[in-house]
């Protein structure tokens, strides 16, 4: 794990323009205040891992980055564009931000291959051949080249999740968001998905990863956010945070999960 992750970590922070910037993001669900003013900057090749107790707003934060949740107040910038502006073309923005979900969310009525080619065809307007080739490349990259004609219902959770990753990668996104992608998997299937993510980080993909896999967070993350009760309670270099937590909340959290 450590070896593969090393390149991703070595070139971090502050390279060029920020890719993503959140300014004082608040999110209310009815009267529930889920995000209470989050500021965040991500650069190319950053692998930001987000950890914290459940209900702390981790998934909401991640979903705000691609505007699947609209912040109640605050701004989200992607490549210098304010995507919280009502005039922003979110459909176009989302083609640059791949998301992988906890529940895979593959389209059950389509084969693995069609899951990947659908958006290439309908959104990017690629020709059938181009879409097919690109999809086959990505499916092979996640080790699913042998099951391209299977329907999601015929695949294991780990296999479905790898197809979901291929589906997102095929759009050739600028960054990838991973929302607790291994939480729904049987323990013996977690490894195959993490392996794909580690390789992706090694290839220099910009990633935000909400996860309960503390080993992954420590080894692969270039930066870690500890989100607690809607605020970033602590952030920094993952190992540093694991070995020298600064706040009581993080100490308590680590004591529980490690």
């Amino acid at each position: 794990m450590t070896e593969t992750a090393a390149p991703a970590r070595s070139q971090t922070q502050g390279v060029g323009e920020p890719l993503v910037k959140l300014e004082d993001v608040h999110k209310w669900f009815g009267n529930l205040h889920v995000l209470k003013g989050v500021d965040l900057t991500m650069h190319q090749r950053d692998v930001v891992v987000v950890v914290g107790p459940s209900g702390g707003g981790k998934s909401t934060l991640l979903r705000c980055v691609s505007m699947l949740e609209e912040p109640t107040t605050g701004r989200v910038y992607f490549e210098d564009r304010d995507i919280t502006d009502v005039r922003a073309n979110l459909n176009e923005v989302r083609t640059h931000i791949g998301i992988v979900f906890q529940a895979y969310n593959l389209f059950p009525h389509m084969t693995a291959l069609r899951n990947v080619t659908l958006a290439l065809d309908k959104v990017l307007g690629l020709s059938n051949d181009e879409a097919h080739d690109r999809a086959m490349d990505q499916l092979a990259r996640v080790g699913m080249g042998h099951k391209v004609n299977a329907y999601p219902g015929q695949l294991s959770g780990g296999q479905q999740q790898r197809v979901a990753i291929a589906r997102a990668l095929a759009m050739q996104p600028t960054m990838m968001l991973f929302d607790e992608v291994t939480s729904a998997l049987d323990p013996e299937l977690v490894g195959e998905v993490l392996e794909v993510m580690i390789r992706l980080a090694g290839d220099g993909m910009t990633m935000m990863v909400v996860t309960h896999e503390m080993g992954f967070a420590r080894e692969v993350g270039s930066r870690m956010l500890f989100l607690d009760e809607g605020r970033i309670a602590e952030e920094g270099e993952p190992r540093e945070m694991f070995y020298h937590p600064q706040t009581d909340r993080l100490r308590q959290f680590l004591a529980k999960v490690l």
Partner: protein
Amino acid sequence: MVVREAPSIEPEVAPDVRGPTAPLPAAIFALGIASLVVIALGLVVSQLNYALSDRVLTQNCLDEQISPSDNGAIGVCNIVEALGDPLTTGALYLGIGLGGTALVLGASTYRRMDSKRRRDEAITGAVLGSQAVLLALAIVWFRSATPGLFAKHFLNFADLQGYGAAFVRGALNTIILAFAGEMGGIVIGLVLGILVLSQRRAVRAPARTYINFFRGTPLIWQLVTGYFLLLFGFGLHLSAFVVAIIVFALNTGAYAAEVFRAGIQSIERGQIEAARSLGMSYFQAMRYAIVPQAVRRVIPPLMNEFVILIKDTALVIVLGLTASEYDIFTTAREGQSATFNATFFTVAAIAYLIVTLPLIRLVNAAEKRLRSGLVGIAGAGG
């Protein structure tokens, strides 16, 4: 650590745990079946005996106001006479005796049966026996009343001669009315179903108003008013048949809209999120990801709506169809009016059942397939 050896001989099939049977429960079970069979045989054999041999109008029948001038009087008389035949009587009372025995024996012993099979046989025998007793008592009561009157009006098939083609055409017209109405309704329903799911009240409100109006007013009102509206209000030259199809489509559209709305809402939220996260617009997500899945789920309820519509087409009788446009019910009603013989309605029921029963079976099969969860895989062209 204890390592347990697997048993050397693995059974090939699941073991039968229902246990052995015994003479008593087997006898109760047999008695129950026998009681029903005896009654059925007695009825069928004596009816056939009378129907297939030369008979005359008996005094008994004349007393029941079956007159020689009635069309098919002899046939009706045969039904009445067969009902009163000693063979029928014997079968009914034997059935009551056998069924009653099965009921008493089964009910008194099933608790003491010591294997599942014995218990099941005792209970099933008692249930069948009680059904036989009730059936036989009902027939005994019925034939003591006015079976002649009943048979004359509901089982007199003589007047139906020459109506065969009319009923076939009626069935075709019924199916055309229902099918055309359903197809139009599905198109209207899909559009309305998507509209009522809109985030915007301005989009939702008109669709909701339409649905509430057509669900909240009687179909017969819609037919009559629609007819006058189109022909006199708008001065259109439409046949009643076409008006009926239009009204059925508008009405079914309201119900289909609710079916589609529920179907779309039943698709997990993650599906639309996944589609949107790939850059698809709302309508692309609907078209490629959501609706194809929803359509599979709404097939059984839509077929159910279709069965309901087949029966509701009988309401076209209020519109004054021309003879070639008659549906099943209008055909029967016209026949009954001409002959004062309600047997036409008996035949109409049979005609409706011939159309609807296969569909009902198909709906059940489709629902079963849907529940088994294979729908996402089978027949998915993408």
